[in-house]
């Protein structure tokens, strides 16, 4: 769900880039030189994971992992996403240069909301082994759902006539929401088993 160049209107680009810049600023204020390598390597991990393809019937789709990224990184998701999106635009042909801000905002806002909603739960939780899975499940599903809704909103604010196109694109992405929820759920359950301190404090606390 990357928005390409030439699709968005000037005002939408201006507003979304400003907001994305603010988000990246807040995210950067939360890392210091001890945690920057971690943030960079986590960005690389999410970048590589998002290249993974999952077959759905005859076609395939790639994961976005917005929910997992938000859950682990919080506000730092903004600079991490901006770096990954910049990379994708310049070297892989996804997204666009003028829409870099809008794309960062759409994914970053979804990630931060996921963090706010679900991180407190995962911190408190200690009981039954199934629960981390369900926290991750909802975080993954809602993360990508919000990502999609923000994507739709940006397009719709640019041009009301995009309405039906947006609907079609979102419908095509519906299976991904379910897949993403299951994958994120089991990734969180795995992390809870293997490296619980990661979910207690967040990865950027050394």
């Amino acid at each position: 769900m990357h928005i390409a160049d030439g699709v968005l209107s000037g005002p939408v680009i201006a507003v979304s880039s400003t907001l994305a810049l603010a988000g990246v600023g807040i995210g950067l204020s939360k890392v210091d030189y001890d945690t920057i390598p971690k943030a960079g390597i986590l960005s690389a991990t999410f970048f590589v994971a998002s290249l993974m393809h999952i077959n759905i019937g005859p076609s395939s789709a790639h994961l976005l992992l917005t929910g997992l990224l938000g859950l682990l990184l919080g506000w730092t998701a903004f600079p991490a996403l901006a770096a990954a999106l910049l990379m994708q635009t310049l070297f892989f042909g996804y997204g666009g240069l003028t829409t870099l801000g809008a794309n960062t905002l759409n994914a970053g806002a979804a990630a931060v909301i996921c963090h706010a909603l679900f991180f407190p739960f995962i911190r408190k939780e200690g009981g039954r082994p199934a629960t981390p899975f369900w926290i991750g499940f909802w975080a993954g599903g809602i993360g990508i759902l919000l990502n999609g809704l923000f994507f739709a909103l940006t397009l719709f604010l640019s041009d009301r006539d995009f309405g039906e196109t947006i609907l079609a694109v979102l419908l095509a992405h519906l299976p991904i929401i379910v897949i993403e929820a299951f994958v994120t759920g089991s990734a969180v359950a795995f992390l809870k088993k293997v490296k619980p301190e990661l979910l207690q404090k967040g990865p950027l606390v050394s």
Partner: protein
Amino acid sequence: MLIEGNVHSFINRIDPRVRLLIALLYAFCIAFSTRFFPIVLAGPLSFVFVALARLSLKQTFRRLAELNFFMIFLLLFFPFSVQGEALVQWGSMAYSKEGLEKAVLIALKANTIMITVSGLIGTMEPAALGKSMQFFGVPKKFIHIFLFMVRYIDVVGDEFRRLRNAMKLRSFQAKCNLHTFRTYGNLIGMVLVRSLERSERIMAAMKCRGFHGRFYSLTNFHIRMLDFSFLFVCLCFLASLTWLEFFSL
């Protein structure tokens, strides 16, 4: 890994800062254009950049696949939403000529910009890109995250491939079922854990070597006559595109 095409190509002799500046100006110039004429001129020029970078056309087109996935949706559905002269009438729905024109324009703009960016920056060394971003005032912390990411994409990618091979050796087959999703979740979790542990080792190693939040680069950029000429030619072209946008028919 990233440096496809030819390292000794003409584009790679141009100062990275100049290339970044032109790519940005070019993208904004084309993205906000509302007429066909400037785009029709800029389209062929974008291939000039690709040729100068000695990128193969096949690679360039493969890059455009993801972008055009959305464009197909746009061409299919957008004209139905726009009021205008109907090309195809289907019940109460009309596929309008104005809508098709707008959709084609957007698709052309997006492709033109992406091809240009591939030509200008696609073959740039990421480290040079980081340095140019610093020149234009991008925060240092962001550049550090970007450079670490670029450096470790290959390493993390190898980690992924190693685990995928291990899965394949145990007869794992990717299908569209719960087992596959759970296994992929575990795979991602495992790579995350390994990446974090790696990052701790990296940080320790860097501290041992006296890292205090600064990368030192051995290459220094110098603006030469060639860079100036390239910048001048490109700016002239952009200026004429803008002129066409406002004053042509």
